[in-house]
């Protein structure tokens, strides 16, 4: 990461923002899996 780069407005660094979005995707997949297994029978 370029040290002169602008910081994001939250979470301190872009790496952390990207990690948060990736984690969100994992949670969405988990949620969809639960939804499918609970209702789609």
């Amino acid at each position, binding site marked *: 990461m*370029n040290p002169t*780069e*602008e910081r*994001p*407005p939250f979470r301190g660094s*872009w790496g952390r*923002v*990207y990690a948060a*979005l*990736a984690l*969100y*995707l994992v949670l*969405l*997949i988990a949620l*969809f*899996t639960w*939804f*499918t297994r*609970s*209702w*789609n*029978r």
Partner: protein
Amino acid sequence: MRPLDWAVLGASLAGIVLYGLWRSGSSRTTSQYLLAGKTMPWYAMALSIMATQASAITFISTTGQAYADGMRFVQMYLGLPLAMILISAFIVPRFHSSGVFTAYEYLERRFDAKTRALAGVIFLLSRGLAVGVSLSAPAVVLTVILGWPSQWTTLAMGALVVAYTTSGGIAAVTWTEFVQMLVMLAGLFAALLTVILLLPQEASFTNALAVAGAAGKLNAVVWRLDLHDQYNLWSGLIGGMFLALSYFGCDQSQVQRYLTGRSVTQSRLSLLFNGLAKIPMQFLILFTGAMVFVFYVYTQPPIVFHPEAMRALESQPSYEPLSREYDRVFQQRRAAAQRFDLEGFRQAQEQMDEIRSHALTIAGQAAGQGRVNDTNYVFLWFVVHQIPTGVVGLILAAIFAAAMSTISAEINSLATVSMVDIYRRFLRREAPDGHYLAASRWLTVFWGGYAIVTALYAQNLGSLVEAVNRLGSLFYGTLLGVFVLAFAFPRVGGTAAFFAMIAGEAAVFTVWHFTGLAFLWLNAIGCLAAVAAGCGVAVLGRRPQAAG
């Protein structure tokens, strides 16, 4: 359509255009006209990006898709957040720091003029083929359902879009898309809320979910890997990521949105917001379709939703017995749902599916075609026949907004690439900025006129429309491949990149023609083939020097 619906529809469309023109101001330079002077905030770009992506036919047919095939289509978007991360990290800073107007202009800085020209032409070819379809498809559906003359719907929608796109440039496009996306979201929530409220009292929300699930409509995730299955977790994560990388990283209709950002941070935030909001939005659209299915478990739906196909079916001698059988099985299915007998419901559902499939085949044969596909007509049928006055106007406004946002972005980006990558680069290199500004406006009018004429002609092309649409997306993987070479392989030169694009296209067309591979994987194949070919040609090109 009641007067209140007309009032809501008219006020929404007028409000959208006037707001866009008011916010955009006047453009005095090419930079202002094509890049909004790089002043756009993240939230305007974010909703603009989402609006460009959501076309009318997506809005109409996604709900129908859930009705017919369940919610598994949502998996196509699972790779999108990963693509947003990669584009934000690696592509946005490069485009911003290089000060380019188009993605393809960057290719000349990195490679050479011929690579830029080929990429620009591939974009003009694929997007130019799609723009008429974007305009004609909703007009055809609205005509069939509402009886409006399709030529007038096409002309009215096309003229309105061309007027504000030509007048205000990218700023008008972005700010109108900002409001169009809000109208789309309002229409989506209104539709979902209405369908849930319209469910009969015996169908509680949990019962509705159980009934939809018993018919296989709530299959949001399929973990099984099958390369010939269009939508599963793996094709969505991997193929969908390549598709999103190509679309958001190399397609000028999207790249131009975030090039207007006032900083790298603003552009990144707009893309990351898209990664955050897109999947839940698609989930809600599909869930609305699943709830429309539940509504029609308790209220008898037509055997075929396409009005013209229905008329063709009614003229056939086999219609009467088929219709009686359909009525009987519907009653059986409803009774099973009412007593919550899910096994009985499933059996009746299978019979209904068989009868509907048979009816669609007969209707198609009567019209001299193959099997009719009525997926695009399910949601509009529900809107027109079941939804209360006022809400119909709002939902139609959302569909119009979706159509207009995609068309304006396409026209605007086609004009930009024609002006920057072809006219200014190859035809008229040294001219005052005012000349290029005027050329940009004229090219917008040209592409708008082209879209309208193609749309009017496309209405008679039938299934070719779908073929052209699918053909257009065959180019994405190769375009992504050449950008991967540009960003990640510094030793690959212009000639290698040029041949990489040709090899990538050859690979995609070969796989597409000779295998039944699911469509999403073609993006990955095009990209990987282009990267491999580019590296191969670069290595071969260096050998004589090394030997010498």
